[in-house]
């Protein structure tokens, strides 16, 4: 590729490895967060150390930030009340850079250090499966706060005794979302459906579940097409024209963050959200709502969206206060990621109190089947549970609504029933042989 001459002429100054490392360290400095070991407390007790692993670079940076502030919020609240069992809480954060090997290496390091009491795995599903194996290997408590992939906890063959999930789950989200969509579709006769979901574990799984449950609740629904743009796809136009060309009446999408923004931006040029009913599970997150508002000058109305981390879901004081408290402290609205990390910590806090120690075995036993009250627990009791059978989080508010251009941007909220979700889940588990 390079001519010999060019080589000779330009060979003058090479970049040495040291110079390069120096140059790249500048880049990494912004994302590496130094561990923080609090000074010994007056009462001489060792603090409880919560470690959080997330992604702080690239397009997923917003994920890392949301999670981190969810953790910080919990820590500050706990310490203000005198800690857990009289022990102060300290936190530390590590950047896995979205790489599975790095996530595994860091998880092993944390589990083996003897310094860390709890590890939050706040990356994506890709890392979560590998990190679960670390928990199994070292009998160390790891709570997955982001991965929604059902198989992570549902498959009894791969369960790990010290592994838990505080994230919502695709199966639950979609059983709820499809029920909501089916209700409206039945009423209005929307039979021609499309799905458009990012082409990786998360999108593939939730589109599959959506189709399955939509057909279950509304057998007349016909899926015209399944579309699979890759994650962070810049061009949605051909997908839009394909949907419009087929006279699609309604579309389900699990594009999130900038992707749902781009889908709506490019769709708007063709009048997509006026011509097709959009059911977006992730538009409801403020990380998407805010840029959509900037792109349109207002939030386009009449789009159906799942809402989590919203003061209206549920519309209780506890939830409102949490939402507003977060916003006031950190200057932006919490995301589902902040909420799920916070759930995991509430579970841990209660388990330690119940166990009376941070001993891994004792806390594990306390966590399994634990019930707590959380801002987004299903009203009226606002309970949230870590199901004993599969160590996964249940009973969180599953709500959908219609966009309106006024804070908190959702109206006609419908909260879906967990009885229905469990019914749908049971059927799926039966089919998979997971019961």
């Amino acid at each position: 590729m390079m001519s010999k001459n060019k080589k000779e002429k330009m060979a003058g100054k090479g970049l040495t490895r040291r110079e390069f490392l120096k140059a790249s360290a500048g880049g990494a400095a912004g994302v590496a967060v130094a561990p923080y070991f609090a000074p010994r407390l007056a009462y001489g007790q060792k603090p409880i150390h919560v470690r959080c692993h997330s992604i702080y670079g690239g397009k997923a940076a917003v994920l890392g930030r949301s999670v981190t502030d969810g953790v910080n919020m919990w820590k500050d609240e706990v310490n203000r009340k005198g800690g857990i069992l009289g022990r102060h809480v300290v936190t530390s954060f590590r950047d896995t850079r979205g790489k599975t090997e790095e996530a595994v290496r860091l998880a092993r390091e944390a589990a083996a250090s003897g310094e860390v009491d709890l590890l939050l795995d706040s990356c994506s599903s890709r890392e979560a499966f590998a990190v679960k194996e670390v928990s199994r290997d070292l009998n160390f408590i790891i709570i997955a706060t982001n991965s929604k992939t059902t198989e992570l906890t549902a498959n009894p063959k791969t369960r790990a005794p010290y592994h838990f999930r505080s994230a919502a789950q695709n199966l639950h989200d979609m059983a709820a979302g499809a029920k909501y969509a089916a209700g409206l579709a039945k009423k209005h006769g929307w039979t021609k459906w499309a799905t458009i979901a990012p082409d990786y574990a998360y999108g593939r799984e939730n589109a599959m579940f959506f189709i399955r449950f939509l057909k279950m609740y509304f057998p007349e629904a016909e899926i015209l097409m399944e579309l699979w743009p890759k994650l962070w796809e810049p061009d949605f136009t051909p997908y839009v024209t394909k949907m419009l060309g087929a006279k699609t009446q309604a579309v389900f999408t699990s594009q999130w963050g900038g992707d749902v923004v781009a889908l709506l931006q490019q769709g708007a040029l063709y009048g997509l959200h006026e011509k097709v009913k959009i059911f977006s599970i992730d538009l409801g997150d403020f990380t998407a709502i805010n840029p959509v508002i900037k792109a349109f000058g207002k939030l386009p109305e009449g789009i159906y969206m799942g809402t989590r981390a919203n003061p209206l879901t549920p519309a209780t004081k506890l939830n409102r206060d949490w939402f507003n408290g977060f916003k006031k402290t950190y200057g932006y609205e919490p995301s589902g990621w902040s909420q799920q990390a916070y759930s995991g910590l509430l579970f841990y806090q209660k388990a330690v109190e119940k166990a009376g120690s941070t001993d891994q075995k004792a806390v594990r036993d306390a966590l399994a089947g634990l019930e707590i009250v959380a801002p987004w627990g299903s009203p009226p009791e606002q309970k949230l549970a870590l199901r004993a059978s599969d160590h996964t989080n249940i009973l969180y508010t599953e709500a959908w609504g219609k966009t309106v251009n006024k804070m908190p941007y959702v109206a006609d909220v419908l909260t879906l029933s967990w009885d229905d979700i469990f019914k749908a889940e049971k059927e799926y588990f039966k089919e998979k042989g997971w019961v």
Partner: protein
Amino acid sequence: MDIASLLNCLADPGCMAGQIISGIIIAMVLFLVASGLSLILGVLGLLNFAHGSLYMIGAYFTYTVMASIGNFGVALILAPIGVGICGVILERFFIKRVYGLDALYQLLMTYAFILIFDDVVKFIWGIFDLSIRMPSLFRRPPVTAIGTIVPFYYLFLIVVGVLLVVAIWLFLSKTKYGKIINAAASDPEMLMCLGINVPFVYTIVFGLGSLLAGVGGALACPLRAITPGMGFAVIIESFVIVVIGGMGSILGTFVVALMFGLMRSFGILGFPFFELAFIYVFMAVVLIVRPAGLFGKVRI
């Protein structure tokens, strides 16, 4: 597989026209980014992975101009120039040190800059996704033609893309500076022996390539969220286009960008799950048959 909808579309001129337009639109922004990459690879022999970051900076500059002045026309001029200046600084202080070195060094250095630019962007503009409104000039009902609708902004994009490809081609093949750049691509040492300040030419070429990425970023702004790391989504595809088109060939880049766009828009109709794999297979075949790319010349 959805071959039926591909066949239906091929039989329906309106649908055909619609998918062709979407393919062309994919091609336009990609062409702008890829053309700069191709220029830099062809002339400087540099694998610039940070090129996508320059596209990103173009988008952020556009955001800032829109937020402060609010005029998209001004943004379309200022943002690319700003990116061009960034490119010149980058080349002068860093990139020029890795010319002619092993591709691994180039990769390491330019990859480091992807991280650095992402952090700089996060530091200045924050980590949350940004966006701008469709400029008011283009906020009007789409044009209807050949049974399909063509968004007004897309017409504009196509016009700008075609004008730019003609302008770049004229510049490179008809002007003295273009010829100097061409000569620098084949034999920089000889060029130096004709009294031409080749390091300066390199800086200019890098700046121009960056400017083109900046134009891409600016034009993409009303269509995509502006986010740290957004360059990553375009850099791989741009490399694919440059490699298939033949590095250094602007015409090749343009033609292959169009092919790429059309393959995607029709691929999405026919086999939405495999359309990208299909393109990579195509690339592999091209490289086996013509290692220098469709429009490239083999150079030693």
